[in-house]
């Protein structure tokens, strides 16, 4: 592995940051400060962190309705992200987008999306632009298992394959699409098998192992940058929380959830790896944890103290003003 100690610790810190961010978001949601729907990334942190660690700032991603993790892992600031969740004027989308539409163009994040699979062709288009303009940028489309049943998903992979676009398709297979198990909704066991139809590489990785995700992403990103076209990476993972607040989770057993949390937690397992194989002391990890907690607290304070958007800004940004 070519990763430095700093890079490994960065991965740990980022996964922990996403988890704490999400825990804080739950609290704000419960307090009624976050409105509408909010989909949490807890349990899936290794995917965003592993993939984005293989990307450059100028590379593109498109995200999903479960988008906080992608946003932060791609380099967004905690405070502006939290402010957006609270609908504040200082948020990344000036309070107009919220959790499901968070976007940060400066870090190459072309947005979360309320429409399942809609980001997939958009990332494909970002890859087309990179190819068209002759830059060596790469695009990544994140999506769930459920999204791979949408028509645009298939159309996008075919387009990218025939045009050899610099893109990596990253499936977060968390076994369910809201309440529907992937085994009942997909014609294949592994989403990666679908790559065969488009004559592109399809690989399966343990999505809860940040290093496995990183390795696969690095290979695919390099391939894309070198003009060899798209790759489909399927990350097997699990969402800990219900799909929405108050989800009775009739589709899965508490035992299943407990097993994933206890034996396959991406953060806990990576901490063990760092201590046992990376020579990192528990004190270093504790220190990171305190720092992350302080950062989340500060971002939350910023978000809470920020002003609401003004009514006079309602019509702003429907169009580019000349």
């Amino acid at each position, binding site marked *: 592995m070519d990763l430095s100690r700093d890079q490994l610790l960065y991965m740990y810190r980022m996964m922990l940051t996403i988890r704490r961010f999400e825990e804080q978001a739950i609290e704000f949601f419960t307090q009624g400060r976050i*409105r*509408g*729907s909010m989909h949490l990334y807890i349990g899936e942190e290794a995917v965003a962190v592993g993939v984005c660690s293989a990307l450059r700032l100028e590379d593109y991603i498109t995200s999903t309705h479960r988008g906080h993790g992608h946003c932060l892992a791609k380099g967004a600031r905690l405070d502006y992200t939290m402010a957006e969740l609270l*609908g*504040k004027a200082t948020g990344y*989308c000036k*309070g*107009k*987008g*919220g959790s*499901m*539409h968070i976007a940060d163009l400066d870090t190459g994040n072309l947005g979360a*999306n*309320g*429409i*399942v*699979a809609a980001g997939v062709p958009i990332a494909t288009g970002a890859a087309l632009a990179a190819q068209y303009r002759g830059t060596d940028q790469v695009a990544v489309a994140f999506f769930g298992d*459920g*999204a791979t*049943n*949408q*028509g645009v998903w298939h159309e996008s992979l075919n387009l990218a394959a025939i045009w050899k676009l610099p893109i990596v398709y990253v499936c977060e297979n968390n076994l369910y*699409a*809201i*309440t*529907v198990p992937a085994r*009942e*909704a*997909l014609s294949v066991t592994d989403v990666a098998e679908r790559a065969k139809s488009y004559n592109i590489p399809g690989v399966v990785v343990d999505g809860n192992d940040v290093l496995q995700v990183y390795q696969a992403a690095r290979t695919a990103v390099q391939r894309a940058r070198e003009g060899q076209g798209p790759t489909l990476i399927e990350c097997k993972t699990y969402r800990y929380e219900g799909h*929405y607040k108050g989800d*009775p989770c*009739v*589709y899965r057993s508490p035992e299943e959830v407990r097993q994933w949390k206890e034996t396959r937690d991406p953060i806990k397992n990576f901490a063990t790896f760092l201590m046992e194989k990376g020579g990192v002391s528990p004190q270093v990890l504790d220190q990171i944890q305190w720092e992350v907690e302080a950062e989340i607290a500060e971002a939350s304070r910023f978000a809470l103290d920020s002003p*609401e*958007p003004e*009514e006079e*800004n*309602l*019509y702003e940004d*429907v169009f580019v003003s000349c």
Partner: protein
Amino acid sequence: MREITYLQAITEALREEMQRDQDVFLMGEDIGLHGGIFGATKGLFQEFGPHRVRNTPISEAGFVGAAIGAAVANTRPVVELMYVDFTMVAMDQIVNQAAKLRYMFGGKARVPLVIRTQQGGGRGNAAQHSQSLEAWFMHVPGIKVVVPATPADAKGLLKTAIRDDNPVLFLEHKLLYGTKGMVPTHDYTVPFGQALVMREGQDVTLVSYSYTLLKALQAAEALANEGVSVEVIDLRTLVPLDLPTVIASAQKTGRVVVCHEGHKRCGAGAELAALVMEEAFDYLDAPVQRVGSLDVPIPYNGNLENKVLPQAEQIIAAVKAIL
């Protein structure tokens, strides 16, 4: 009669029509064991089984299209789209296929299809989960558009929709699901194309439907306290449209305000205003007014969202502007 919610009324209509007719079956995302994200199919999977209550993959174009094919092939599918915003994913099937097959085939096909979905804002669901898109479908000949405001209408109109041999878009409103009303216990239907005068008045006519009807009634009450006599009409269905009831009221009051949650530009109110002008111009004492959502995407922030969606205050202001 007993008091139940709008949501329960929907479930009852589905259950009774499935009991009544073996050809009726349901398709949609998460409608099985879970009972639908809003709970409209609660208990139906347990009662009718996976053959008749079918969970679909997230493939709106595919399963709406499949429902059209199944409808042509002698079944009566009722499809649930979780949010009206997702009709956009299935738009070719709805607009180019369902709405046109019968006409293009010279009357040879029937498409007894119901697409149930819910629309509207007010919950912070932001731009892709809060739209009101009825006007898009009114524009397309060949599909009926139903917009119930009360539990009794939700049940009676859904039964009519399921028994209709044409494609019907049945638009519920997310903020109406919890509202309660008296609903008959016997088997009844509410015919399409019959508006209801909810409140009689002499000075001005408010024409509305769906959730905005409740705001129109609030506005009417507030105006009554100021001595303005307001007539309120619930259209209940937009296609077919009960124009005679609207025209009769316009002739009586001479003033009409159309109120809805769809965007004002090219909303249903634009069509209504034109029709009233064409049919009752000589009776009008003032231009027809329209109250709709502002012409911006629905913002996430609550203060902004409340400004974008039509409120009773805007309806009152529109009435006062023409008194």
